[in-house]
C-alpha cells in the first residue's frame, strides 16, 4: 500500500479512482502524563508524553484508513491529509483521509 500526499505518484498511472477513505482515532491522556505535563507547564519544554500519544493515535488513524482502502481493493492512497481537533476536555481526535486509487503496477 502506497500512501502519499501528492496527487499522483511519479512514473505511475492511475487506473481507477475509488473515492474517499478515512480513519480516525480519539485518545485521552492518562493521569500520569497529565501530571508530568502540568509540571512542564511551569518549566517549559517538550511534552514527550503527549508527543508520543499523538504520534501513536495518528498511526492508528492511518492504519484504519489503509484498512478501509484495502477492503475496497485499492493499492494506493493519494492526497492524504491530517487534521486534529479537541472534541472534549482532555481528548483529541486525530483524523486522516485521502483518495483511494488503483495504480498501474
Amino acid at each position, binding site marked *: 500500500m502506497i500512501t502519499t500526499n501528492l496527487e499522483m505518484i511519479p512514473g505511475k498511472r492511475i487506473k481507477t479512482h475509488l473515492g474517499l477513505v478515512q480513519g480516525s482515532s480519539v485518545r485521552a491522556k492518562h493521569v500520569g502524563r497529565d501530571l508530568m505535563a502540568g509540571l512542564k507547564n511551569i518549566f517549559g519544554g*517538550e511534552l514527550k508524553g503527549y508527543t508520543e500519544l499523538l504520534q501513536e493515535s495518528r498511526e492508528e488513524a492511518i492504519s484504519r484508513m489503509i484498512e478501509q482502502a484495502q477492503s475496497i481493493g485499492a493499492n494506493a492512497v493519494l492526497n492524504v491529509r491530517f487534521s486534529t481537533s479537541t472534541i472534549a476536555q482532555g481528548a483529541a481526535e486525530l483524523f486522516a483521509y485521502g483518495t483511494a486509487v488503483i495504480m498501474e503496477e
Partner: protein
Amino acid sequence: MADIIVLILLLATGYFFGRMAEKRHYKSILQREKKYQKLTVVASKFPPAFKNTHDTELVMGSVVVSVDYFKRFVASLRNLIGGRVRTYETLVDRARREAILRMKEEAARLGARMIFNIKLETASISKNQRNNNVGSVEVLAYGTAIIPPRAD
C-alpha cells in the same frame, strides 16, 4: 502574602529553566538544520518528471511544546494592552522547526533526497477549559519523501 511568594517563585523557576531549555533547544535546532540542509523540502505539489520510477513514502514529524510559567504570565499581561506577543512567537517557531526536522530525520533514514508537498498543521492543546490560553501547541509536519532507486 504566601500567594505572592509562590507566584514569584513560580515566575523565577519558569524564567530560568524556560530560558535554559529554549537556548539549548535553539542550539540543537541550528545544529541539526545544518546537518539536513542537503535534503530539500519543497511546498510544490508536482515533482519533476524523473527518468526512472522513484519510490514515494509519506513522512511526518510532530512535537508538542509548552511555554514556561514566566512567558505565560508575560503573555497574559500583553493581553491587556495588545500587540506582539514575542514570548509565544518563539514557542511556535521552535515547535515548527522541530517538527520539520523530525520529518527530515525520518526521510533521511529512508534514503530520500527530497520531500514534496510539505504541509504544516498547528493545534493548541489546552489542559483544561479553565485557563484556556495557548499553553502548549502541537505542530505536525508531513510530506512525501521521494526516494531515488538504489544504484546497484
